[in-house]
């Protein structure tokens, strides 16, 4: 990776700077620095950015808001990380978000029942079943993607393009193109509830992250995924079930997307098959890239992807808070992303470093 380039230059530099340089060379140094810069800008430009209050029984503030809103993206990015690590890509994430949200919203809906003379909304079917059905639909989507990529050997971008188009269409068919409103209150907890004063969505993300981290530590999943991503032929000859592994990562990615879909529809209290999770896949890919995982596959960083998702959400928040018109949002976002990606490009670094070096040498 690009960090190797630096290490070549700095090898004989055993100065007090050495420790710092070592830290800077860490793969997570760049995404962390980018996030820090962004937060620093917010600190100066947005009054009371870091202020956190305790209101209505939970924490309240800009930072909390960013983390809360980044939750679906963080989930999607976690799933996407594994897919990308196997040299794949999944552009059907947004469609899966729409499907799972729609399934949940349709099954829960909300009918008015009189409870002790007070009108109350009840779920159409028990909420647990509805959530299970939504997750089942998402996993089915993942199995479809996995089948196309792992078994039939389609190119991942084409294979998942099919679901990207068809999935959203399917969700729209389910809802007749209408927005399905959910009236059943307990469902909202997934998107906007609080536990121990913190957004509940954060606990879901943390849970998923811990599960993944445990999988990486307590099983050989990480080693196998990296092997398949770096050299699929050699991995197969070493006895790794490459097809099964690839199948699994697509299922996992869709499951993450399904969970994100539940969060999003719980947050907006409805299922919007047309817009829910629109372009979420691109943000997820971006988050993974910002986090330092190469699209060429192989080595990956789960923490990096989470940081990447936070960068994207912090950026969106900053743009809105500064009163930049939403139309400009995309442009600003792309400029920032361009800068971060540029800083990761080995070619760019060579261009930037080599002239100054040749000058310093007589």
């Amino acid at each position, binding site marked *: 990776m690009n960090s190797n380039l630096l290490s070549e230059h700095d090898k004989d530099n055993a100065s007090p700077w050495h420790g710092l340089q070592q830290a800077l060379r860490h793969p997570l140094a760049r995404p962390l620095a980018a996030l820090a810069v962004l937060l620093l800008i917010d600190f100066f430009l947005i009054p009371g950015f870091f202020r956190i209050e305790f209101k209505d029984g939970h924490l309240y503030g800009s930072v909390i808001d960013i983390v809360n809103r980044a939750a679906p993206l963080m989930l999607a990015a976690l799933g996407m990380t594994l897919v990308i690590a196997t040299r794949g890509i999944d552009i059907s994430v947004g469609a899966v978000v729409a499907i799972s949200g729609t399934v949940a919203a349709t099954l829960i809906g909300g009918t008015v029942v009189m409870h002790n003379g007070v009108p109350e909304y009840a779920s159409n079917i028990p909420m647990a079943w509805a959530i299970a059905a939504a997750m089942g639909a998402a996993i089915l989507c993942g199995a479809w993607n996995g089948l196309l990529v792992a078994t039939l050997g389609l190119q991942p971008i084409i294979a998942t393009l099919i679901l990207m188009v068809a999935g959203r269409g399917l969700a729209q068919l389910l809802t007749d193109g209408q927005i399905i409103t959910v009236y059943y209150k307990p469902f909202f907890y997934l998107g906007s509830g609080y536990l121990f004063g913190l957004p509940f969505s954060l606990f879901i993300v943390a849970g998923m992250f811990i599960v993944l981290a445990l999988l990486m530590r307590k*099983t050989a*999943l990480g080693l*196998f995924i990296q*092997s398949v991503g*770096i050299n699929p*032929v050699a991995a197969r*000859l*070493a*006895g*790794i079930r490459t097809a099964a592994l690839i199948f699994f990562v697509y299922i996992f990615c869709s499951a993450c997307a399904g969970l994100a879909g539940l969060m999003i529809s719980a947050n907006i209290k409805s299922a919007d098959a047309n817009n829910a999770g629109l372009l979420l896949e691109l943000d997820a890919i971006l988050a993974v890239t910002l986090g330092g995982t190469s699209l060429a596959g192989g080595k990956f960083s789960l923490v990096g992807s989470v940081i990447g998702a936070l960068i994207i959400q912090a950026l969106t928040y900053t743009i809105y808070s500064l009163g930049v018109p939403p139309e400009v949002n995309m442009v600003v976002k792309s400029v920032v992303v361009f800068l971060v990606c540029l800083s990761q490009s080995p070619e760019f670094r060579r261009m930037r470093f080599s002239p100054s070096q040749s000058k310093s040498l007589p």
Partner: protein
Amino acid sequence: MSAVAMSAATSSAEPALELIGIHKAFTGVKALSEVGLRLYPGEVHTLMGQNGAGKSTLIKVLTGVYAPDSGHILLKGRAIQPGSTLEAQQLGISTVYQEVNLCPNLSVAENIFIGRYPRKWGGVGPIDWATMQRRATKLLARLDLHIDVQKPLSSYPLAIQQMVAISRAVSVSASVLILDEPTSSLDEAEVQLLFKVLRSLRDEGMAILFVTHFLDQTYEISDRITVLRNGVREGEYAASDLSRLDLVNKMVGTPVDASAAGNALAEHADITPAANDGEVFLQARSLGRKGALAPQDLDLRAGEVFGLCGLLGSGRTEMARLLFGADKADSGEISIKGKPVKFSTPRDAIGAGIGFCSEDRKKEGAILELSVRENIILALQARNGLLHVIPRKRQQQIAADYVKWLGIKTPDIDTPIGSLSGGNQQKALLARWLATDPQMLILDEPTRGIDVRAKQEIMDFVMALCRKGMAILFISSEIPEVLRCSDRMLVLRDREGCGEYLRGQLDDASVLQVIAGESA
């Protein structure tokens, strides 16, 4: 003998293409030295040589991919210096490569005329489809090929695609046609079709340079043969004057006295199969795959090195891949210790106690960006399964043990394997399989491209393992090495087994006879 051949080859006509004293070195390593080649109009001239003999380099010099360090290329007596394949083509040297480099999604006609579509209005108007199709049909008819030129190329079998590539090559008014291993992915009937075309082109006066490693095909189509070995021209011979044995002999480079070889065979003929002591670990019966290996029997015994001997492309690697489940066999059965098994993936074979060091270390062996430790424990971990992770401490111990035992030179076990030298990478890959404690090890060219010392060390390990009771299938291009190490060996020729021999039944000379197909 070779003097006779030389004189026979010298024809009265002027060569269509002549190479004189070509030198080419890559960063100090000589690839070609003082190589000459004469190609006459109306002949099929085969270029032969082992892997690394310099065939590809020579062709790349001819077609303008490489510039020679010194030497001349004469086309009809005029010196040329093609700077690119395009330039070579414009001069009249067309090349058809091993992998058909056409566009499968375009029509046959488009493929033939790609980049130079006939146009209306004197060359400036829109593409003249009608003319293009007419001319394409005519060109193919010249090769006795009557197909619909409007259909996409991919709708035709590989042999037809190969013909289309040839007809594209000859349509640019070529006088010299170079075919780089055109038959390697064709079946017998397709080869015959191709040869028919080559013969008719030859009769029209085309000078054809044909590169192959199939002996039978060489003799079937060639008028003359040039043999390269280690970047030097061994000689130029009329095909009719060069016996198969001499040809193999020239390619491999061990002096062979045919009569002495015969004597050696006779001497050892009375040796009874003595090496029956080990139990049969793996038994294969008529194991084969279309286009890779004709059905073949094989018994591998514990504590025995079984050598596969043959030229490149003879079916050695194909056999190994079938035994390991890397490719699916379409005929035959395998049994392990008498129990029938079915290997549909390498994983199945690993489960049965088999390891496989592939001949292509970079593409099929090392996971370059992972550490030495991860590379060493990979197969063991894969066999243990996803859930039974080897504890980090144990991984380090395994890796450190093998690094020490095999003398792998690495700064530490967490260094990426890609930064190690070839020989050390190979040792680490050997360690990967040894860590699975296999009962049988397939070693496909385990010593290719590594230095002499590492080579010797690896072979010593292999022999030591064998003595401990492991069954070993050993493949190498270096025939003396196979002879020296193997207790038993199978000779392969043109993707077909042609005889199993015990140690001592063959020597350097007689093995070449068998490979050449001259052992009566």
